[in-house]
């Protein structure tokens, strides 16, 4: 991203970047100010310990917020002592440094990328970081939000800044109308299937076009969430009336005069006419279909109408062996053992409504394990107020407490070796959901329909 002035047309990412430069010096990365730092139990203990060892403190506890998500149990069960120690470390650290924490048992608790937007903390134009690669989720609001490692977490805790090399800019336009039955998850899987898992390395992606504009905030979050799966540093969508309507009235959203001022400011953020991106990709929305991944990275994805492809290289051969799949098998003939609806990609209220709408009056296929894990305790409460929990449990789904759950094989919710899962999460890496587990990434609609059919299916297949 070149330096910009008021007269040079610039992109959304460049505008947000330029506003946050604390210090710029020749031969050094820009020092960026961080407006909001999200913290969770897994990537923070060593950072707090580093602070203590160096005799440092947290510069802006008021711009830092913590929760427990990755390693929390989502159902009652025996407690793992190592995990208990990790949670209690976060409690101790937050108490010692004055950081607001939403621990398990608190209504504010949930997956870090679900609670930020829910509280209205995630706002257009901010720079946000978290020791988690899916921080890109928050870009759906027009924030520049990216994942960092634990050393960087310590850096932000101590200084509220981060030295960052400027990423390139990349536009992905999804033009036209999405066909019926094609969700945000299908859009992002379709993008990654096209540009590959290295397609965005070194870049911030801005998602543009009518198909993106027509999506709800939940849908935009799903898309930005998976930017990292294309290797990108971050993903963004320009703020618009959909964004403002979502934010208005949330606990941390500005009010009164501040709200008016904020709106004026936010309306100045979208990419200027004529601004140049380093790379541009255009996708015709009309050709998108529901997608299912077949391999062990998110780029190894086809539409549900396709068959398992012939392996093009050694990596694909290894993936097929791991997934125990034969080329030429129609995706619809693959039968999962388990269906997981959850994760920071697809566990918001809209995702649960969509899945419940399909499950209403239907039953999970016998022998299939199915669970739904709301992204936050507030999402859980709202779903219960709407009666969605009853729909899920009547259909045969387990209804859990909030957490990352089976998105990663860390907490008690895990696949067993060889178990095949239709999952609304974001990563189908080997063992991601548990040792030897086989993950197929899908949308909430396909997950719900698959649970009923017993094989990969779309909701319209159920009516056929």
């Amino acid at each position, binding site marked *: 991203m070149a330096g910009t002035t008021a007269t040079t047309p610039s992109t959304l990412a460049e505008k947000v970047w330029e506003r946050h430069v604390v210090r710029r010096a020749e031969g050094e*990365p820009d020092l960026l100010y961080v407006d909001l730092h999200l913290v969770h139990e*897994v990537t923070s*203990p060593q950072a707090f310990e580093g602070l203590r060892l160096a005799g440092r403190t947290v510069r802006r506890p*008021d711009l830092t917020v913590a929760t427990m998500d990755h390693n929390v149990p989502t159902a009652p069960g025996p407690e793992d002592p*190592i995990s208990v120690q990790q949670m209690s470390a976060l409690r101790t650290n937050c108490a010692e440094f004055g950081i607001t924490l939403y621990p398990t048992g608190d209504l504010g608790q949930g997956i870090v990328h679900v609670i930020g937007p829910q509280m209205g903390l995630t706002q257009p134009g901010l720079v946000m970081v978290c020791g988690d690669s899916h921080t890109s989720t928050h870009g759906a609001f027009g924030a520049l939000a990216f994942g960092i490692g634990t050393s960087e977490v310590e850096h932000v805790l101590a200084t509220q800044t981060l030295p960052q090399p400027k990423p390139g800019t990349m536009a992905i336009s999804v033009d036209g109308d999405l066909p019926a039955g094609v969700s945000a998850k299908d859009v992002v899987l379709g993008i990654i299937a096209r540009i590959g898992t290295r397609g965005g390395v070194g870049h911030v992606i801005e998602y543009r076009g009518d198909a993106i504009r027509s999506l709800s905030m939940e849908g935009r979050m799903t898309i930005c969430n998976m930017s990292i799966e294309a290797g990108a540093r971050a993903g963004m969508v320009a703020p618009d009336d959909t964004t403002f309507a979502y934010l208005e009235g949330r606990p941390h959203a500005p009010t009164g005069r501040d709200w008016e001022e904020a709106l004026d400011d936010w309306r100045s953020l979208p990419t200027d006419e004529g601004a140049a991106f380093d790379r541009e990709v255009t996708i015709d929305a009309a050709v998108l279909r529901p997608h299912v991944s077949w391999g062990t990275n998110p780029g190894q994805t086809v539409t549900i109408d396709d068959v398992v492809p012939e392996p093009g290289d050694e990596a694909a051969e290894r993936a097929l062996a791991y997934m125990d799949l034969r080329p030429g098998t129609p995706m619809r003939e693959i039968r999962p053992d388990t269906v997981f609806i959850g994760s920071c990609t697809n566990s918001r209220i809209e995702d649960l409504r969509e899945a419940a709408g399909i499950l209403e009056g239907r039953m999970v296929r016998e022998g299939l394990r199915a669970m739904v894990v709301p992204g936050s305790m507030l999402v859980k409460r709202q779903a219960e107020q709407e009666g969605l929990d009853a729909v899920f449990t009547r259909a045969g789904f387990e209804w859990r407490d909030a957490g990352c759950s089976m998105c990663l094989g860390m907490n008690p919710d895990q696949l067993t070796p060889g178990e095949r899962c239709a999952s609304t999460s974001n*990563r189908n890496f080997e*063992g991601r959901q548990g040792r030897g587990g086989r993950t197929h990434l899908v949308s909430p609609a396909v997950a719900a329909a698959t649970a009923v059919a017993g094989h990969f299916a779309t909701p319209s297949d159920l009516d056929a």
Partner: protein
Amino acid sequence: MKPFTTHTGRALPLDRADVDTDQIIPAVHLRRIERTGFGPFLFGEWRKDPAFVLNDPRYAGASVLIAGPNFGSGSSREHAVWALEDAGFRALISERFADIFRTNCSKIGLLTVELPAESVRALMDAVLDDPSTEITVDLRELRVSAPAVDERFEIDPYTRRRLLEGLDDIALTLANAEAIEAFERGRATRLPSMAPTGRPA
């Protein structure tokens, strides 16, 4: 941070593309709150296969890792980097590293060297052919040398200086505390905050 100037050692050839951090260290090993002791969990699942290259005694003691492109993709877990360091690795060579992973390496003094695909291939083949092959990675001269290869590499000057001198970048940033304070004075008061005043009941 330990400075990195130059290092010579034998190498482990990991001839796979897109190795993600879930493979480098599976999530089940991330429950510990310490920063050390992750080495035994490096490639935690793959190493259960006796044929996995890490189990080949001819490569025991390797301190340079040669990997396929897009090494370190996926999760931001720095535990992956700690595991490599703990297992004795000092430098990693690939055509391309994932962004967060590369940054994480630079923060703890583990050198990542990006070389053109042909050069990585040549190094990989040399080490597969003869496991006793030694590779020298010289950050002062920006050179990778081995019997089959002698190649310059690029690295951004800031990271290079930090690694050469073993500088703690938090200290470097805190030396600019005035610039941070000045920036903070200019921030709009309407920006979100967890401070009690900014937080309606």
